[in-house]
């Protein structure tokens, strides 16, 4: 730790040159809101920090070919304040506003939140519900596009290789951006790690759900999609029965644990409650 090095590349070529030239365990950093606490707790002891915060190209929010593209280095505050995001994905906007606190939101990045891959990562459920993709770059130009639902493989584990960084997150512009709902339950109303969170996006045709996407946080080793629940939603008209059935199905798709914040049983029942509320909220006009 004494001789920990810090590199400040100005562009992606420099990043990959640095990875090639240096030996040892490198850690990509940006906002440092997880990295510094982890170093403090001794959870990680990197020998090399590759600081991506100088890559200004990677901080943007824009529309590109019918998709919304958010650069990995966009801060959570920027996501929360973005009019474009508020219009195209109110659930993402809402989740951004609920992450951490205003001070940490000014430093934490959307790429960092996904790369850290906490099971409670606040940005993951809405992005999963938006069917977002993660775009990466790697040495040797082997960057790829990874569907977010294939991105997380375990608590704080992703499919990213050691020399691979997220550059951008994209999702297609939804037909009805407002037909979504995001609910986070925490033990406090600020600076709260979520006990459970639910994000729902529905594409409706009258009372029929053409496409339903349900994503959950803090109730499995990673943020997850609730595929069976989605299938049930897509089986025709949504009525009271549908909602009840979905709230039962979703409980079978999760693997909650007991920890200092809540018991597994509580997380189980709360997922059901939050899902019900989220669906009803969408049917009632959704998130604006």
């Amino acid at each position, binding site marked *: 730790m004494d001789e920990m090095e810090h590199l400040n590349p100005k562009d992606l070529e420099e990043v990959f040159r640095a990875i090639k030239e240096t030996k040892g365990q490198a850690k990509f950093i940006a906002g440092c809101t997880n990295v510094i*606490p982890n170093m403090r707790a001794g959870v990680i002891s990197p020998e090399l920090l590759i600081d991506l915060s100088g890559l200004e190209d990677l901080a943007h929010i824009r529309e590109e070919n019918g998709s919304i593209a958010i650069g990995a280095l966009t801060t959570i505050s920027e996501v929360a304040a973005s009019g474009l995001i508020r219009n195209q994905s109110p659930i993402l906007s809402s989740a951004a506003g609920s992450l951490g606190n205003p001070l940490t939101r000014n430093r934490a990045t959307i790429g960092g939140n996904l790369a850290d891959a906490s099971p409670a990562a606040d940005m993951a459920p809405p992005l999963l519900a938006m069917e977002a993709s993660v775009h990466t770059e790697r040495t040797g130009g082997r960057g790829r596009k990874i569907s977010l639902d294939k991105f997380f493989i375990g608590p704080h584990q992703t499919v990213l290789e050691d020399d691979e960084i997220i550059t951008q997150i994209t999702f297609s512009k939804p037909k009805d951006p407002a037909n979504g709902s995001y609910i986070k339950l925490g033990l406090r109303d600020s600076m709260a790690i979520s006990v459970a969170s639910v994000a729902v996006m529905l594409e409706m045709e009258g009372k029929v759900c053409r496409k339903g996407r349900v994503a959950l946080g803090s109730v499995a080793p990673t943020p997850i999609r609730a595929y069976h629940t989605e299938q049930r939603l897509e089986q025709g008209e949504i009525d009271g029965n549908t909602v009840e059935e979905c709230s039962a199905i979703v409980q079978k798709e999760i693997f909650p644990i007991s920890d200092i914040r809540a*018991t597994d049983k509580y997380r189980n029942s*709360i997922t059901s409650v939050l899902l019900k509320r989220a669906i009803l909220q969408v049917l009632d006009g959704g998130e604006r």
Partner: protein
Amino acid sequence: MPGKPKKETFSKSNYRIIGKPMPRHDARDKVFGKTKYAEDHAIPGMLYGKVLRSKYPAANILSIDTSNAERLPGVQAVITAKDIPNNENVTRFGQTHSVGGFEGLYRVLADKKVRFMGEAIALVAAETQDIAEKAIKLILVDYEAFSGVFDPAEAMKPGAYQVGESESNVICSYKVRKGDVGKGFSRSDVIVENTYRVPFQDHAYLEPESGVAWIDDDGVITLQVSTQVIEHFREIAEVLGLPHNKVRVIGTMIGGGFGGKEDITVETYLALLTWKTNRPVKLTYTREESILSHSKRHPYIMKYRTGATKDGKLIALEAELISDAGGYIYLSPWVLLYSTVGATGPYDIPHVKVDSHTVLTNNTFSSAYRGFGVPQVCFAYESQMDELASQLNLSPLEIRKKNYLQKGRALATGRVLDHYVAFPETAESALAALGEQSRSKSSAERIGRGIASSMTSYGRMVFLHDTSRSYVSIEMDGSVTVRCGVQDLGGGQASSLVQIAAEVLGVPMEDVRVYIADTALTPLAGTTTATRQLYMSGNATLKAAREVRKRILRKSAEMLEARPEDLELWDRKVVVKEAPDRIISLASVVKACASDGTQLYNVAQFNAPFRELIDFKTGQGQVFPDFTFGSHAAEVSVDIETGKIKILKLVACYDVGQAINPLSVEGQLEGGTVQGLGYALTEEIILDKGVTLTPSLSEYLVPTSLDVPDVQAIVLGSGDGVGPFGAKGIGEPSMVSIAPALANAVCDALGVRVFDLPLTPVKIVNALKKS
């Protein structure tokens, strides 16, 4: 009556400064970033100290090998128990008197055994913080770990793991006996019996423990440290085997105390390291270290049985209290005594039986925390009142009104309340201030309201013969100096003295300079604990200022050819009340005094009333000088599906006697309410077999600005306190009744009660499922 201020020539109707919302004198320095807290001090050539702490909650130490640490370049000292002249010190409670019965063992560093996880084992001083941290990791400790005991009820049983070195884990027990509870219960129409549990609470002051130390040119070990008790200098001296006058403690402005900086924290470590190395040393705890190793609020298991007639008159109360003292005694016997005396609450009950015990376990040690044993029992007795009310079909306010103590009535300990008791009006006002009941906004939301009342002592236990001293002088130019050993933990302790001196001497607050918290240079004023400073150092300052005032008026009377009682001291002038054109400047009076040798300074000592130790067999006798009475009212909305509680309205109504500074009083009520709100809803130090699962402020949840509503503080002033100008203390009382008010509100909303704190969503949902 001892302690009551004499009738003054200036009166309440024309106080200039007392009772006015004055900006605190220390606020400006704080808002401009000029105030130096302990960690802000740096001394050239200073070393950095670090503590090695136990990896196990219960273990023997077989050996400690410090050689690798000592060899690390940059390390200047490694200290273990064997290097300490007097590693163990028996703490006698009270400033100068030894009170028989309870002598707490204070051990600087663990020697053969560790009793809680995080107990200090070794100290290091090194050239940099980094080297000190590395050195700690190089110390090899060979432990023989045991399974230990973590439940005080288990620890009480014969054959339980012995936490300490003596026979029993039970530190002490008390009894209160009044009447015959058997008879009382047989006469009761309704009996309610429940067990209440409350958790470890952390003070979570924003400023972690910190200090610097050096040896001055006269060989005096000098500490500049964040502490509520500078008078630990005596114990520090004894640890080092030095005379008391060779240790000086200077208290810095404290960044929050709440009782957590009442016991020795970093002081002995600093003193030892500077003594060993002959160099200045700084030592600051990390937040994780603070949570791991400093005192906590005692968890209690409280079995309550309360009986009442069908009209709602309380007839009998039986309580058994078991408190978890953790690994060391510290102040547990006193906390238990407060709980025992306060177990019945502010109610008149003919038959009372209380048995209480405080027990060693291998958890973090428990000690002083705002309220000192009273918030725990208040949660129990105020929940019981509502349980009775619901069985009897009475409102919570009605049942309390039938049973409140009044002035002239006695507690179950026989002590007659000799000052005004602000019930029922504090409860009535608090409840009325909730206004119209809010409506629920959804089918899952239930609205409920609750009240709770408390009586909390201010001033220390009367058999401790508490005293306080203060020095007040007028300088040659008419400016005023106050020197007082008071420690300021942010509650305006120093600022109150400025207000008092300014009021009495007829000068603006800006003319008063106060020096505090230096054992070498300020008259000792005792601890900033037990809600005693306004009462004690306030009265001492008042006494000293009045003496100076008397001399000023005597001289002025000569100069103005009037009688002293005809004169008024006002705005740096002396004026004849009936003839305001006859006026002279204070400065001219001061000069006249100087030329004829009239001293314009006074050191006054204020003595609290002294009583004998109570009869511990029956719990009869007086323990406290006086009490502060108050109530909280709350309106909550509970989501019955998620169990989340939202607080809609919160009111605190307390009788403070006379508010010296209304802004400060409101600040205490608003702040105490929020600290109690945390205790009620989110705060819990979770220990699993002695290991903390809540190591930082990410896991230990203190209320944020989004978790609390605006607290409405209603301040009543009966004038009947024993503090200066009839003031009462408010620092601790302000946090006592909020948790039961919230618990009662939640029960009102749901129709089911949760019997332990904090009221987490999981507990709410489980309680609803069960019913």
